[in-house]
């Protein structure tokens, strides 16, 4: 193991190493765990307020229908408060993009005029509890006149979803570099495939939830919401409701998983806030159930890739010509737009491979299905599958080893910074190193030998699958997430405050849905200020506390929110040093802070404590040196301007049961360059969790609509999420190359999801020689293939 190759030896139990060592890079005890492990977490569902009432939404049973009438009299007569689309018809969600081809459409708060997907909310009932609210729903009559639904994005619609887009295409763009046609014409081999990926969803274990209360005295709205993006939500709610932004407070307390699904402002969220304004002083609570979640929270990954790739005789990739259609569902998801998946697919299709000639037309097509939104990995679990399929197919045709053909084409450290054909700049490049390490962990030669042995003996066949990918993380303003929306998500703010007792409070703009940001931010600040991890409290998720943060998406928070925390903490340390130097009449350059004590260099004993310095700063202005103001805090913003690419390789050995078509994963290995690991357990947890989600999507999870637009997988009995019995033990390794940002980190939240589709499809091809053009790789599909 070379010196600069950091492995995760630290991943053994919680590291309670005492003071002095610094907390970054160690598995400190997570700040979140005590409350979560004892049943004292604070999820939105747990919010209980005086006079609280409960909301239930009535949802459309049709995929596509005109609304011809709404009769709420019976419900009102029974004493229920009822809201329908007409109540909020003046407000609509319009996701905006300045892209030339983008067709802007509107999403109503509660559907009126027409419904565009089964499960769309058409009315809401308020009652003393949820049971009664659901009783009330039965008394509301909505009349529908069914329209022809479209569920497949690559079939022509008979009735457009939105009048503004007669062909249902909400956005189309072509990425174009080099000379694709000529190069393909002269290529030694051109492989061509039509690939489709299965619609599935993030499906966090906590469904959506909200509590809204309107304070009539101050004209202020408070909204507890399990959102990944409280500041964006505040901004949007204020704008949509015509409120001063300072009078909207969004609080995201503990959130039970997000994965992108909760980075959207949903019509139900806005409905709750609007209803609360109509009912001053009465807190309204809505807790989504799983059936609603599967119907109406965002879906993802319903794509088709028409792929053509040309290679020379040595297997060098020469050109890619692709046409990508993404089913974006009934609405352009707010605020990310219908461009979120197609543009990501087009921007990152070529992934970690060197390529000059590239043409890729991507389009987002509306259908009568639930809206698609960001889901961990956005589009790339599909695009990586498409790209890796090209390499496997070319390798087979050219008689080159599937690993070798990839090794020849990946970006290397010598190529860095590498400008991809979509003009994104890759700054990692450690793919070969990740690949070597992954193959070693898999015992590649051993598996190959076993594969040959089994071929001869006739035992269950095994195959090896491989995926190489890059994950664009921590996007600054120059590479900012999203398709030319009216905002740029490159920065976050952080406030660090030393309290009069010397303990530190951090008001950070990051949010957490399980990623442990309270812990990571505390580690960063503790080390940068020079105090103990245990003496730092981090408060997140409340827009009345932190100044600004865009929230959790695009694997951005460790880089951006972490960078902001670090820079701010450094400012505060400087202030402590300046003040201490004045008090001690010492030179600033001679002072250092460690574990809350201020030392003069070379002296073994601390001279003064941070607590004493802080006391002076707040309570003893008489002792303040000249020119120093009271207080001990700082607030700064950080924007990395560009992004940091994380590199990743996943390989697996998979056994196929010929009798049942079932895949059994014998060994699964992932090696990533995730930069510096601030908390190795958390980093590995992100990777392992992401791989498990990827495996679920590759093998089981499939949201299926029938032709009439009904979701036929509406419970967890039909929508199969992987359990501990299906997800195998994984081996996770690291090639930790610091990125060029204050902490040297690369984002790590999403990468794991990118591999499994390609890995399992590749393993199947390797084992049996069959092409996998359609996902998921479910046992029935495999079995059918095996029958010929």
């Amino acid at each position, binding site marked *: 193991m070379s010196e600069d190759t950091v*492995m995760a*030896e630290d*991943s*053994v*139990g*919680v590291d309670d190493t005492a003071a002095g060592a610094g907390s970054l890079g160690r*598995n400190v005890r*997570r700040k979140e*765990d005590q409350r*979560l*492990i*004892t*049943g004292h*977490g604070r*999820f939105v*569902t747990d919010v*209980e307020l005086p006079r609280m009432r409960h909301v239930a939404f009535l949802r459309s049973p049709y995929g596509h229908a005109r609304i011809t009438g709404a009769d709420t009299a019976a419900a009102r007569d029974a004493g229920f408060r009822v809201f329908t689309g007409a109540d909020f018809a003046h407000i609509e969600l319009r996701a905006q993009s300045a892209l030339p081809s983008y067709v802007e459409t509107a999403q109503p708060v509660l559907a009126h005029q027409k419904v565009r997907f089964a499960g769309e909310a058409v009315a809401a009932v308020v009652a003393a509890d949820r*049971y009664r609210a659901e009783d009330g729903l039965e008394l509301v009559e909505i009349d529908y006149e069914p329209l022809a639904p479209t569920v497949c994005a690559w079939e022509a619609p008979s009735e457009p979803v939105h009048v503004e887009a007669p062909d249902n295409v909400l956005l189309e763009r072509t990425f174009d570099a080099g000379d694709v046609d000529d190069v393909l014409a002269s290529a030694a081999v051109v492989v061509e495939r039509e690939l489709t990926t299965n619609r599935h969803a*993030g499906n*966090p*274990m*906590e469904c959506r939830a909200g509590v809204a209360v309107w304070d009539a005295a101050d004209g202020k709205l408070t909204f507890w919401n399990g959102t990944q993006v409280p500041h964006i939500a505040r901004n949007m709610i204020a704008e949509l409701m015509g409120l001063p932004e300072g009078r909207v407070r969004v609080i995201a307390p*503990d*959130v*039970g*998983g997000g994965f992108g699904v909760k980075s959207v402002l949903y019509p139900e969220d806005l409905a709750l806030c609007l209803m609360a304004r109509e009912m001053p002083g009465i807190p309204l609570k809505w*807790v989504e159930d*799983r*059936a609603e979640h599967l119907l109406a929270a965002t879906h993802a990954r319903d794509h088709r890739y028409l792929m053509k790739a040309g290679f020379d005789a040595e297997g060098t990739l020469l050109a890619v010509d692709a046409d990508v259609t993404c089913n974006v569902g009934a609405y352009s998801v707010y605020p990310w737009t219908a461009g979120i998946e197609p543009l990501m697919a087009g921007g990152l299709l070529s992934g970690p491979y060197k390529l000059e000639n590239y043409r890729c037309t991507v389009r987002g097509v509306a259908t009568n299905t639930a809206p698609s939104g960001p889901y961990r990995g956005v589009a790339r679990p599909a695009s990586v599958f498409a790209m890796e399929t090209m390499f496997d197919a070319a390798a087979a045709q050219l008689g080159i080893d599937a690993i070798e053909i990839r090794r020849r084409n990946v970006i290397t450290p010598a190529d860095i910074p590498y400008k991809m054909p979509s003009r994104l700049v890759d700054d990692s490049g450690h793919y070969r190193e990740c690949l070597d*390490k*992954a193959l070693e*962990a*898999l*015992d590649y030669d*051993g598996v190959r030998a*076993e594969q040959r042995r089994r071929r001869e003996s006739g035992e269950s066949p095994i195959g090896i699958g491989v995926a190489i990918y890059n994950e664009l993380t921590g996007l600054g303003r120059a590479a900012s997430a999203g398709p030319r929306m009216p905002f740029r998500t490159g920065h976050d703010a952080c406030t660090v405050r030393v309290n009069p007792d010397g303990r530190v409070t951090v008001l950070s703009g990051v949010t957490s849905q399980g990623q*442990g940001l309270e812990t990571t931010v505390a580690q960063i600040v503790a080390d940068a200020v020079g105090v103990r991890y245990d003496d730092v409290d981090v408060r997140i998720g409340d827009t009345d506390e932190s100044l600004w943060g865009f929230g959790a998406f695009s694997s951005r928070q460790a880089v951006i929110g972490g960078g902001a925390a670090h820079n701010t903490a450094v400012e505060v340390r400087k202030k402590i040093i300046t003040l201490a130097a004045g008090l001690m009449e010492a030179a600033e350059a001679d002072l250092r802070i460690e574990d809350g004590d201020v030392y003069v260099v070379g002296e073994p004993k601390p001279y003064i404590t941070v607590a004493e310095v802080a006391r002076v700063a707040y309570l003893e202005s008489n002792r303040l040196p000249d020119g120093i103001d009271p207080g001990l805090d700082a607030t700064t913003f950080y924007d990395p301007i560009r992004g940091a690419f994380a590199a990743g390789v996943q390989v697996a050995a998979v056994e196929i049961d010929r009798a049942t078509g079932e895949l059994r994963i*014998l*060994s699964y290995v992932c*090696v990533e360059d995730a930069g510096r690991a601030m908390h190795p*357990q958390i980093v590995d*947890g992100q*990777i*392992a969790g*992401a791989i*498990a*989600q990827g495996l679920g999507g590759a093998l089981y999870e499939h949201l299926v609509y029938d032709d009439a637009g009904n979701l036929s997988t509406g419970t*967890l*009995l039909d929508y199969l*999420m992987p*359990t*501990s*019995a*299906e*997800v195998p*033990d*994984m*081996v*996770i*390794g690291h090639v930790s190359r610091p990125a060029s940002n204050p902490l040297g980190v690369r984002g790590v939240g999403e990468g794991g999801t990118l591999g499994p589709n390609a890995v399992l499809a590749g393993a199947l091809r390797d084992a049996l020689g069959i092409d996998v053009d359609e996902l998921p790789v479910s046992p029935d599909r495999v079995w059918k293939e095996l029958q010929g």
Partner: protein
Amino acid sequence: MKISFSVNGERADLDVEPRRTLADALRDDCGLTGTHLGCEHGVCGACTILIDGEPARACLMFAVQVDGASVSTVEGLQGTDGELHPVQEAFVACHGLQCGFCTPGMLMSACHLLDTKPDADRETIRAEMSGNICRCTGYQSIVDAVERAREGMCVPAVRDSNTAAPWGATFPEE
């Protein structure tokens, strides 16, 4: 309907509608919000509690069904002195939780598993814990935590490629 039962050793007297689920009664009437609801149709296991020592899904039961029974929830695991239950401690040590939403159900299932099958090996743990869905962790760290709680020893949260046993010429089952 009036019901009485014991929850974490304390007596609860409630007057509930017959249709009220046990989960709602525990969460809203008893204030024990540690029991979570992830599906409300008996699949995800987030609501797992113990009734007279046996695991049950609080979302699938009516409150009236526990009249006279003894119920244990996650809030009862921690000792009165504040010390964590070994299973809780193991989940923290092994990073067996991320968002913590599935965790209460996982802990209750794990406690029951270790009570009834103290010798459970890794495969058994995986099979027995498969009634609880976790969307965050990928399960490895949860299985590690259960093993650690059982053995009272240190198990890596996620195995490193250097320590995981790669196979050689022979191809082991796992």
